[in-house]
């Protein structure tokens, strides 16, 4: 009797294990095939020229997407410079000071913004900044990406700060430290790992955004000439080149895709490492 029940339990344990493993494989399959497909297609396009040359006019062979690589770095950099500090500060406000209606409103807005399709952000930035400046620009693209990053950074910062035990805040306050000092030198420092991880994941998230850039930064065949000028980026080049009929451009689009995936991958790995190194909320 007891032996039978024991065996049944062992069997169902095993069955669940097999099912879970199968589900994992099934989930990893599309991810793996995407990576493999992009890698095989992309590797054919990558050469020295790809990283150093400007795009050639239609029909001419060769050339590269160096300007788009630099452009993506600039756009993501601009977005980070604007989005990360603002997001961290808003997160600090929500976690440490935010009570009452204003905090509720900020939190609600963040949640809504996380769900808003990025193309909407693009249209809004177009309607405001692009129209006001009367031209597409890197700065408009950076603002659009920053707006997409903002709720992500804010909410991770808030979550991470909330993981810091209250006993540390009280220990600091009991020493006579002000609330700001407590937040800055105790709470923020304890949560730093998690905040860096969250910020880097937000960077990885916006690096591949295409739709908002079509309305804001547009694209360019040349090197970047100023933040108030239109600027090239990898996602937009993938989009435009992939939809042309030219074999050569398809090839470059695959190359761009691989470079973009690699950038995102490296950022994500850096995010995980940063989280582990700093030890999160420990």
């Amino acid at each position, binding site marked *: 009797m007891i032996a039978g029940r024991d065996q049944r339990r062992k069997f169902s344990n095993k069955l669940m294990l097999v099912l879970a493993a199968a589900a994992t494989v099934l989930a990893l399959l599309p991810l793996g095939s995407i990576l493999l497909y992009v890698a095989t297609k992309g590797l054919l396009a990558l050469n020295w020229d790809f990283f150093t040359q400007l795009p050639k006019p239609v029909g001419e062979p060769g050339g590269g997407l160096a300007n788009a690589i630099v452009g993506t770095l600039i756009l993501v950099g601009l977005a980070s410079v604007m989005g990360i500090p603002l997001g961290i500060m808003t997160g600090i406000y929500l976690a440490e000071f935010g*009570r009452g209606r204003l905090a509720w409103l900020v939190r609600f807005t963040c949640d809504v913004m996380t769900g808003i399709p990025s193309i909407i952000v693009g249209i809004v930035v177009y309607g405001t900044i692009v129209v006001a400046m009367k031209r597409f620009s890197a700065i408009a693209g950076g603002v659009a990406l920053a707006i997409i990053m903002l709720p992500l950074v804010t909410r991770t910062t808030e979550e991470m700060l909330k993981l810091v*035990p209250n*006993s*540390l*805040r*009280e*220990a*600091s*306050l*009991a*020493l*006579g*430290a*002000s*609330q700001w*000092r407590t937040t800055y*030198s*105790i709470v923020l*420092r*304890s949560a*730093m790992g998690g905040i860096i991880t969250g910020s880097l994941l937000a960077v990885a998230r916006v690096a591949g955004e295409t739709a908002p850039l079509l309305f804001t930064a547009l694209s360019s065949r040349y090197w970047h000439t100023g933040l108030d000028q239109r600027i090239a980026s990898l996602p937009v080049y993938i989009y435009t080149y992939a939809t042309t009929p030219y074999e050569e451009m398809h090839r470059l689009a695959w190359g761009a895709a691989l470079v973009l995936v690699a950038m995102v991958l490296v950022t994500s790995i850096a995010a995980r490492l940063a989280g582990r190194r700093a*030890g999160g909320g*420990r």
Partner: protein
Amino acid sequence: MDTRLLVEDFSAWYGQTQAVKNVTLPVYASQVTAIIGPSGCGKSTFIRCLNRLHEVIPGTRTRGRVLLDGQNIYDDKVDPAEIRRRVGMVFQKPNPFPTMSIFDNVAAGLRVHGLPPGTTAEEVVEKSLKMVGLWDEVADRLQDSGVSLSGGQQQRLCIARALAVEPEVLLMDEPCSALDPVSTLKIEELIKGLKEKYTIVIVTHNMHQAARVADYTAFFLNGQLIEYGVTSDIFTNPRDQRTEDYITGRFG
């Protein structure tokens, strides 16, 4: 005997709940005063009012006066940060700053308030660690993380951190309840040694601990001060029936 702290008709609330009810109590200088009473009777709330830490919890309020050397710490002009320097606190669970080294933990308060004139951080840290008997155990690893120490060591580190800013009063909220008996004994010895220089208020739910370390004992019940007096009187000759019931273990 000097009165270091004089609590006058003091009450404290969490929202609508009153946790401390019209308490009046003198705390004598260079003496150990124990607060005893069943769990939930307002002991923690009460001592958190003595360094104005109660007010950092949203929705709380207080009424009444607490005189520190004659000055009301709840006066509008008083800076709570300065009060918290003069009235240090040690918590129930050891809470060293996990991102800081042993050295930086002890020096944390100095970074806020500045060094006493004519001293260096190294001197103050060494002196504070010696006072809690931790110096010999950690002298060769001051740069290790504060959380690498054992629980008892961590608690003594927290006491050193509180002492480094030279408070006049040291509040301790069940400082041994998370510790093993050996560490508890060490802390009790430490308390006896510290009382020459500091006025100590210790919350404990362990009556034997109160009997061992305290000169004066206050018995709280449901937020009220039931009885207060010399420790030996409270334990051998309580005036109130409820005190007697509590110390003879009939409830709590």
